[in-house]
């Protein structure tokens, strides 16, 4: 969870950076690995999002 975020663009850029950096990890203790990172995310102030449903909304997005 991250806080003090207001702009969806900032969140999106952060998520993409996260994905790129995670997928750039290609070896683990010498063994080759290929990651395929799927990311779900939601801002609290998005329409329809509440404190109660934010977790399930992100999970739904992830499972699409």
């Amino acid at each position, binding site marked *: *969870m*991250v*806080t*003090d*975020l*207001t702009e969806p663009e900032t*969140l999106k850029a*952060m*998520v993409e950076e*996260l994905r790129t950096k*995670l997928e750039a*990890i*290609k070896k*683990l*203790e*010498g*063994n*080759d*690995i*290929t*990651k*395929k*990172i*799927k*990311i*779900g*995310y*939601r*801002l*609290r*102030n998005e329409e329809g999002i509440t*404190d109660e449903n*934010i*977790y399930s909304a*992100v*999970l739904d997005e*992830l499972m699409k």
Partner: protein
Amino acid sequence: MDEAVSRAANHIGIAEYVAENIDVAIEKGWVKVYYQPVIRTLTGQLCGAESLARWIDPVHGFLSPDKLIGPLEDTNQIYKLDSYIVEKVCSDISERINNGLEAVPVSVNFSKLDFEATDMLKVVEDAVEKYNIPRDYIHVEITESMIVSDSDLMERVIESFRNAGFEVWMDDFGSGYSSLNLLKDYQFDTLKMDMEFLKSFTDKSKAIMTAAITMSKNIGIMTLAEGVETPEQVEFLYSIGCGKLQGYYYGKAMPLEEFFAHIEEMGIKIEPRKWRHYYQTGSFCARATEEPLEIVEDDGKEFRTLFMNKAYKRQVLTGEYSLEGIDRLIYKTKSPLLKKYREYADTIETTKNQETFYYTYDGNILCFQGEELAEIDGKHLIKGSIRNISIDNDFRTQNAVGNKLRELNHLFETVMIINIERHTIFPLLGKRKYINVPDNIENMLQEHLDRMVADFIADADKQKFYDFTDISTLKSRVEASDKGYIENIFRIKQPDGNYRWKEMSIMMIPGSSGKEYLVCGKATADDAQPFLTSNNRVHNPEDYGLTNENAVIQSKMWESIVAASSVKFFWKDKNRRFLGCSRAFLDFFNVKLEDILGKNDEEMGWLIDQKAFEEGELEVLNKGKNIVRAPGQCIINGIVHNIVSDKRPVYENGQIIGLMGHVTDVDEELSYLDKLYNERRLDPVTGLMNVSALAEVTRSYAHNYATKGINYALIILRNENHHRIVDDYGEVYRIRFCHGN
């Protein structure tokens, strides 16, 4: 002549046909992918394949690559063929993985024109993504000539593929435009030695191959030899440490099903992905060298030699043996040396450092140096080197007694040679068994002895050991001994943490004028151990299930509890005066033992409600009451501590002779509970918050959003290939993988 013209005309006809029909051929499935096996030299297992294009034409029949590549390059259509091959290879690999079958990495060949015509990295990435296969299953082969023709382009290509996680191999090394600058300026993962080297299997070509492969290893490039056709070639390539082998000896290029059927028929096992890095590491270390070199696999029970060069064999063998023969001779015997090898291997595998051992064999003193290369699932790859120091002139000169040390390793666990004039100590047998010192002082006598006393000798024997090894009196004590040597027994800490009695003897080396001595260590006689143990017994009441046989352990446990446990306990006499306490008790109250001995709590003045404590203790002493978790407060260094205490009577012959109790610091306990509480909030796999902690944090974020308007976001990450990593590399990687990220 007519026939030649006809052939040329036919060839031109085929070329046009190929150029005009490549799209149809791909669409109709006339283009096939054939696979040629690549074998791991060290294990003989299948570790890869090279994909090669074939065109089975309904009209012209089988069209080999030489009839395809030229026309397709001339018409700038080669990328179509190569892109299709990439797609099909990924599809084939994916199908095998999804069907639960073993798959191996496949190399694909590219033309320089591919990169000019299209974005081949995207072609490969798209195919890998589409079929969801790991990138390490695809290797890219490019030739030297491609680099020579456009070095800037190829530099970008090599870099982009390697950055994306694909291995890039240099194909046909040595075939035409070979330049060592290529190896200097570009980073390849594997060098494929051209098959022409093996066609002329002369001393000259062998020497060139040996040099090329050694050079590759020196600059961190793996090696593969193409064109392997005979057992002699296999043997030679094995001896020079060539990592992988490819050629008709293992099979020609074949369609997929035929390929795996052929591998099975030949009895070749398939190297699982999990073991690839492990054996690759071993392969990389095997090399042509004049230094003795072996690579052994240890599964914890048995050893298996994977590589042993001639220099090594010269040190330990007298004839020619196969690897299996070597294992039978060295590891599958009833030799007492096996126990030594196991001990050495266990040490190497535990410390992960390069370790040196000395032992005797057949009258020779051997120095073995080993280090672990890789470890997985309880199997360890060990690289070893050996030197027969009996035939080392320097050693022989320095140690005239050396030749007399025949087979002593069967009798002694360790034999050290010390020189009291030079203040040095060197192992002759075993290793520096009872010493953990930095390399820079490992041979310094007094430092060695001091560390041994500090780390290994039991407290009760420390002074005895110092007296025994006192250099200033050593000569006179040995000379005064009727036996010609001195000996004594000591309790010495063993690798498992237990102390055992060991017999140490020190003997002057004849002719050294009292400057050099042998210090020998061995286990005490089998029948002496019970006697020594019984002499150390402490009486314990058997109604608690404590038998006399356990007396030593019980005594040690008691000492350990008093000195090292965190329990703050004490015992008092009938008059409530302290008789003793644990180290933790002293630390907690910040006092010394002499401060409290013979005093009661009132005299100590550290309790806030002294009366309640006194009454409680009197009940214990006069009525035999057990007090459990009685609350109270005490002052330590001016700070009030909340405590609870337990107290019980102590009996002798049925009479209460005192009491025993312990104190618990409530604040300390609460702090510990807090820590436990936090641990309950962590996910053991990732080390991050678990769901219940997340829910708690979410509540906090929600509160801030509602009351202060601070926005927040929830991000959930999922690695869709996680299950595959765990399946391929094992459960242990599940945790390492998550924590590594």
